[in-house]
């Protein structure tokens, strides 16, 4: 057996284990970190890295899903309309993205992520959740209750606001995610928290479950095109799944400000990397 054949899968497993922990705590799929890191430091072609990145985001969020649902940190009724809008539009976005130049896509992605990080940083640091429902949110029963153990067992009853705009946003986010080849968790969390009024931890947890559904549809595009190389994708899947379960256990006990800062730092780093790459400064 070729020596390189062993080394790279093991290195991928170690890297993705760490990424799995960070991804759940930050409410992202992990692909946004995996793709630039592996494309820069591993010998695989970007086609296979993107395919593995998509599966990595998918499997990490699948692994964390049961814990997040049972803890009330992910809400299935909130997931259903948003994931449906997102998954349909992500397929349309993937088709559009294939027709655009890669440099243009990378630059737009970097600028978008940095803008989201700045927006989140400038918004109020406290919990931002809605206790009043709008008509559509009421009809869809988009409401829930969770106990914030990190805040001394405070019980939070929340409802969504601006629900129609929220669903439209997820259609747009799904389109952008499909176009950029990512799970788009970087946009899910602010849309759920700032726009729709879901508490930050519920936004982070629900974002993960939404990614698991949206990425399932996009993953089939890669599978059907033969762009998933098992020796790259499977070690990445196993590593991120183990890491994600640890991340999901950490999420309920981490204070909201820590989660918030983690999200902002992760977004800024990933955004800067994508922007530099798109501009050809750090290819």
């Amino acid at each position: 057996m070729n020596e390189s054949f062993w080394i790279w899968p093991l290195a991928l497993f170690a890297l993705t284990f760490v990424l799995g922990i960070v991804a759940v705590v930050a409410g992202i799929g992990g692909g946004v970190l995996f793709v630039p890191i592996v494309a820069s430091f591993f010998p695989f072609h970007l086609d296979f890295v993107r395919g593995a990145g998509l599966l990595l985001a998918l499997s990490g969020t699948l692994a964390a899903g049961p814990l997040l649902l049972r803890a009330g940190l992910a809400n299935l009724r909130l997931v259903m309309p948003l994931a449906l809008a997102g998954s349909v539009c992500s397929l349309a976005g993937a088709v559009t993205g294939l027709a655009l130049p890669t440099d243009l896509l990378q630059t737009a992605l970097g600028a978008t992520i940095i803008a989201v990080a700045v927006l989140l940083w400038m918004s109020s640091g406290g919990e931002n959740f809605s206790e009043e429902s709008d008509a559509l949110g009421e009809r869809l029963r988009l409401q829930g209750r969770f106990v914030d153990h990190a805040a001394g067992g405070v019980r939070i009853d929340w409802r969504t606001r601006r629900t129609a705009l929220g669903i439209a946003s997820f259609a747009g986010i799904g389109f952008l995610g499909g176009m950029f080849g990512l799970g788009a968790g970087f946009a899910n969390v602010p849309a759920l928290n700032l726009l729709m009024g879901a508490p930050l931890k519920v936004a982070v947890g629900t974002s993960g479950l939404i990614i698991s559904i949206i990425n399932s549809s996009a993953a089939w595009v890669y599978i059907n095109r033969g762009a998933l190389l098992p020796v790259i994708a499977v070690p990445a899947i196993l590593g991120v799944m183990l890491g994600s379960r640890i991340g999901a256990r950490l999420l309920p006990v981490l204070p909201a400000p820590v989660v918030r800062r983690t999200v902002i730092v992760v977004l800024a780093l990933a955004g800067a990397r994508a922007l530099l790459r798109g501009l050809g400064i750090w290819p």
Partner: protein
Amino acid sequence: MTHPQPDQSDPQEVYARWLDVWTHIAFAFAAVALALYLTGALAPFVAPQAVVELWRLPVDQYLARAGAPSGWGWLSLVGRGDYLNLAAICLFALISLVCCARVIPAFLRRGERLHAALAVLQVVVLLAAALNLFPGAR
């Protein structure tokens, strides 16, 4: 940390339970498949030496040089180490579809027809993606 006893018929709990079971099955399947592949216990379709040489190429060139299939053509090669791993990957991609399908009756039993309809539509979208039916995605 303890949580209150969940309502076993609540679609959220049903989804969590099925997600938990299927994710464990897919994880175990993938771990065994990877071990069989990397140890050489199950012969691959594309030799390891060739994979190392070709994984730097774009997907179209890789498929052409390796003689590997695209679409669902790999099904006939599932007895090979590499394609057994692709089967594991497909299993992960199917989990959301299975869970969404499973919560349809759970929503209907509670009279939540709107959410049941959303779950049906989600299943249709995922099924169409899996079967490569979206125009332009091929």
